[in-house]
């Protein structure tokens, strides 16, 4: 990791972009001639130049407009890079106002007999799409594109939504050679900027201030003068963002700036605070976000809850009754949001609602039931990570019960999760609990409890070399949650087909699932099996891989190196015990040896224990991971750890005829 920082810093400081002319239309023949990117010779395309100029325009009648000028020059090296010749600009509308894209100008440059030829983008290559009531898209597709082409376009996006500045990208999935960003904001609107601290790139931002003067067009009007805060990025050679396996969400590691409106201070107006610290954000969500109203209304469910809770005193039992009652009553409609879209009452009556509707209602109900409960705002994985005080950073809400034993997180939109368990979408770093008394605090959303999966495989090797036995699998915690999601509600037929998958020449019998409906308890799955071709017979000897279909046969970590952290879904323990009865007339010639391996002071542990008692063999394998995030510098340790596990789980027992 450190090495990477160093290299990246070197690249940023180091080589300049040469003496290229980045004015619009000044594409050089050399740019078209270039056959591959000098720093990243496998890049399919590169952004030779990107300029983003964001500023406010003032008009006597309409006031401020937020304007973004984009100018991009893109080099296309290969056919795989052709996708970069189509640009989609996505923007926003609501019922009152809309953003607009104007002044589109674009050319494709090619060389013909050594001469630079340009081809203009005409209207037949520009398309407007109204995606939904909120989203508009303008699509450009460039003419005359071939390998080597350089395309250049500019356009202006004009937005009436002046209090919201979009994220500023500083990195792309292709290299950026020269990046110039300028953001000028009138002193009336005070934004705070936040770089993405998860990105290994450090790109400096210069800050300065600059006066702005507006002369009114009308006679009666006067002169408007104010200061602007100016933020500038001028940098060269930003490396491409490249994907890896087992990354939580690639964009979390991209370089970008976020902009948060903290307050406005217009002439002759009071300061209007938006948010400037977490307490402020919490307060504003609590009061304006409708939280206060949502979590205090109880009239509409009073009667139902009184009946439900009658005679039940223990707090946690009351909580569980309420949790299950609500989940049966109101179903999630698939929409996110930390605010209630239709409101708890409507959701309660209609039986459906968004995340805000359901979990704020859950909070209200638990409160009514006498629990100390508050909402926790959350950002889902695809919404990024909330790293600074902002309402926009959140898009989801759950409920947290604070009890003597710590915090219990609940999400009633998930039909399979127990109290204290969250679905994967809500398990993104940390959330912010917002208490009624105005205080707030961070809450770790990563699962703290280890989930377990315990299997016992007991079988007999017949003289016909068929393995016959029984498999008992116990799923606990999030394993149980996932099992219920994937294997619950299947017909017997499809359950069998699903279990048989990947197990070879197997026939199942007496498949049974227990506790499927009793959420919060362990799920038990049992079945009998007959596995043919589960052993090798060579020269009177039998070779048996004892874990048959329960072992890991391949190391999932195959790449040589690693740039981003490795994510496990949750802390887990997987224990598999195999009991084998070998046929009469055979004895063990060789058995795998027992081992115990630990990494990082016990954050990961693999135990492999073997014992024998006559014709009975017993092998136990236990994989134990206590942590869910491993940094890139631990990649090789983790890879080796897995390699060892694969090796032990695929090692054969050798049986020979007794003499």
């Amino acid at each position, binding site marked *: 990791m450190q090495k990477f920082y160093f290299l990246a810093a070197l690249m940023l400081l180091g080589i300049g972009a040469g003496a290229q002319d980045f004015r619009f239309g000044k594409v050089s023949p050399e740019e078209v001639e270039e056959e591959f990117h000098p720093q990243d010779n496998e890049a399919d395309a590169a952004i030779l130049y990107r300029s983003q100029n964001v500023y406010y325009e003032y008009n006597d009648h309409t006031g401020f407009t937020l304007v973004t000028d984009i100018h991009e020059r893109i080099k296309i090296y290969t056919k795989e890079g052709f996708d970069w010749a189509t640009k989609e600009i996505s923007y926003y509308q609501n019922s009152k106002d809309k953003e607009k894209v104007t002044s589109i100008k674009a050319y494709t440059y090619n060389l013909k007999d050594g001469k630079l030829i340009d081809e203009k983008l005409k209207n037949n290559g520009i398309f407007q799409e109204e995606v939904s009531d909120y989203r508009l898209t303008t699509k450009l597709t460039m003419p005359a594109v071939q390998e080597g082409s350089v395309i250049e376009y500019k356009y202006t996006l004009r937005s009436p939504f002046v209090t919201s500045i979009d994220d500023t990208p500083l990195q792309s999935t292709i290299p950026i050679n020269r990046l110039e960003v300028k953001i000028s904001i009138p002193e009336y609107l005070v934004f705070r900027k936040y770089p993405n601290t998860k990105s290994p790139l450090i790109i400096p931002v210069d800050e300065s201030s600059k006066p702005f003067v507006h002369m009114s067009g009308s006679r009666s009007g006067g002169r408007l003068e104010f200061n602007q805060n100016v933020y500038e990025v001028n940098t060269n050679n930003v490396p491409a963002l490249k994907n890896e396996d087992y990354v939580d969400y690639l964009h979390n590691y991209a370089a970008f700036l976020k902009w948060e409106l903290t307050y406005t201070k217009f002439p002759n107006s009071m300061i209007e605070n938006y948010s400037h610290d977490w307490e402020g954000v919490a307060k504003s969500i609590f009061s304006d976000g409708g939280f206060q109203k949502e979590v205090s209304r109880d009239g509409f469910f009073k009667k139902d809850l009184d009946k439900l809770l009658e005679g039940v005193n223990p707090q946690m039992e009351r909580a569980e009754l309420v949790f299950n009652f609500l989940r049966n009553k109101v179903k999630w409609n698939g929409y996110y949001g930390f605010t209630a879209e239709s409101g708890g009452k409507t959701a309660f009556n209609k039986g459906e609602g968004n995340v805000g509707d359901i979990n704020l209602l859950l909070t209200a109900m638990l409160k009514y039931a006498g629990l100390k409960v508050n909402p926790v705002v959350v950002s889902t994985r695809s919404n990024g990570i909330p790293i600074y005080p902002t309402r926009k950073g959140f898009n989801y809400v759950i409920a947290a019960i604070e009890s003597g034993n710590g915090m219990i997180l609940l999400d009633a939109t998930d039909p399979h999760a127990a109290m204290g368990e969250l679905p994967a979408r809500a398990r993104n770093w940390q959330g912010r609990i917002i208490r009624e008394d105005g205080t707030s605090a961070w809450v770790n959303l990563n699962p703290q409890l280890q989930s377990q999966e315990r299997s016992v495989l007991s079988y007999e090797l017949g003289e016909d070399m068929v393995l016959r036995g029984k498999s008992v699998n116990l799923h606990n915690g999030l394993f149980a949650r996932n099992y219920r999601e994937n294997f619950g509600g299947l017909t017997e037929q499809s359950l069998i087909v699903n279990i048989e998958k*990947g197990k070879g*020449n197997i026939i199942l019998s007496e498949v049974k699932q227990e506790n499927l409906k009793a959420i919060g308890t362990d799920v038990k799955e049992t079945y009998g099996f007959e596995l043919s071709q589960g052993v090798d017979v060579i020269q009177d000897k039998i070779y048996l891989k004892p874990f048959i279909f329960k072992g890991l046969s391949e190391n999932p970590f195959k790449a040589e190196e690693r740039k981003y952290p490795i994510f496990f879904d949750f802390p887990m323990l997987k224990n598999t015990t195999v009991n084998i009865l070998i046929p009469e007339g055979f004895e063990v010639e060789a058995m795998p040896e027992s081992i115990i391996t630990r990494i990082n002071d016990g954050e990961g542990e693999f135990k492999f224990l073997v014992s024998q008692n006559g014709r009975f063999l017993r092998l136990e394998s236990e994989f134990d991971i206590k942590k869910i995030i491993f940094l890139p510098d631990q990649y090789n340790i983790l890879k080796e750890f897995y390699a060892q596990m694969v090796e032990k789980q695929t090692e054969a027992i050798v049986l020979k005829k007794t003499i």
Partner: protein
Amino acid sequence: MQNQPTVLIMLRLFTFLFLLVSTTVFFSQGSPYSTNLVDPKLKENANAIVRDEIRSISIEAVDKMRINYRKVVTILNEKGDRYAFAGDYYSDNIKIRHQSLFIYDKNGAEIKKIRAKQFNDRSAISSGTLYSDTRVSYAEFTPREYPYTIVYESEVETNSTIFLPDWNPVRGFYVSVEKSTYKVLNPASLEYRLQERNLENLELEKEQSLNALTYTLSNFPAYRSEPLSPLLEEFSPQLQVALNEFSLVGVKGSGATWKDFGKWQYDNLLAGRDRLPATTINKISQLTANAKDDVEKARIIYDYVQQNSRYISVQLGIGGWEPIPAAEVDQVKYGDCKGLTNYTKALLDSQNITSYYAVVYSGEEKKDIDPEFVSIQGNHVILNLPQDDGKDIWLECTSQTIPFNYIGDFTDDRHVLLVKPEGGEIVKTKTYTPEENVQESNCHINLGEDGSFEASIIRKSRGIPYGNIYRITSVPEKDQVLFYKKHWGHLKNLNLEKPAFQNDREEHEFTETLKFSGEKYTSKAGSRILLPLNFLKIDTYSISGREGRKLPIKIGRGITEADTFEFSLPDGFELEALPEAVTINSEFGSFYIAPQFLEKDGKNIILVERSYTLNEGTWPAESLGEFRDFMYSIHALSNQKAVLVRSN
């Protein structure tokens, strides 16, 4: 193998506006929506039950059609939710006149109604398409409990009578049909034709007259999905209807034979769209001046198109059926399949080389343009170059990398419609036989005593396997290496040198030359070493042996895999036991493995020759046992091991 984006052939479809235009009419009285009323037989293997569906198509004029649709569907569980979709697609030429959705609980009591005004509106541009004018109007509903029943009604009007919706009463696996009715009202007595599919042996109610048609299917149980079965549409009941005179977004036409229909397509959609600028023609003439024959000229022209165009799908112009003119493609250098095919054809025309625009259903699953039933069909266009020897040349014009005359599994072995100036003609595209679909490897493996190995492999792919591999050249080296590590996941701790590739685009043969080392290939058993003979694994099918299979077993394409593994034994070891040579022959294919021991240059060698052929074909459900035996025998035989011992 999940990380194989590199190898997918990225050809694209264009969306013909086959919008299953829907709608409604009749209403029944009472509350018949209680789930208890359903015959238990219809609940078997079902996620959803089509309780009552009526599609009523009124052809009011050659260019005016109204479709009233009503469906009552009971959803039994989450997996059936998709059959509750309540919406219709529309565009400039398809107008929705009415929509409503009612939801009932399991007792048949109404729990929600959604009126037309509350329907959502979105653009419906499919992924891979840059622009079309298609939109969708649909209602959303979150089920609280199962089962529930929806009643969706709609009325749609269009000026395109060329697309009469088909009748597909069985909408998927695990869906049963209590009743489904299809009506065509034809007050003007326009001439029509119909084609029944898989309706034999079914009890149907049918009425047919000059100006009306009604088909009803009742009490049809759900199909269960089974691995390696044919596509649902190959065996499920269907009816197609087409008019002899019709209109496509207002453009009138006629055609009751493929010849006439093709003639209409040519005259209205293609004719006159092939003009090119003189400069381009001159350039092509120069490029092809020294070519020895028309095939070589065509090859040069195809290469020119590939170097000078890219695929962009914009569906405008006569409902998305008309190619953009060749001159426009020449200027902007992009187009969809229609535009690029028409452009290639125009370039060939300029050199007096005959070629035909060929309409096809694309996709890995083969689907024919029905030779027996004339109607607008297909979702893709390729180019046909007739040859005197009957071995026509086929060109896929949307790819910049696919070789000349290689169509692969995207459009192979199926009937297509050639749109000729003199009229349409149905012909079949190239078939890739198991003998042509070959992947053969030659591996030299040096074994270490500790289980490590060094291997060098030369692997050649032809036919369909060619299309699955050749694009690997265009991904970064890091991803190439990762591809092989995943592809051969059974080989541990692989360490690859930079792979070398040779792409023979003329012969459609791709050669990979790979060198790598690995560990733990052999295993120790006491003083012996076990050597698996299965250095590269064979992809065999492992399918459930449950009794009661109903559907046939279908292998869409045959393949041949031939491998030679030459293992050099570690120093100081000799052979103790070697499996015998075996050959299996069956109707499904063949397999042989022949291990032998030899000494070469003072080294002890085990040479394994192995070959596996899977035939293309469809076999009855009863063959399942034999099919499994065939697969598992191959699996067992290829997994055999040799035993090595230390020499004295």
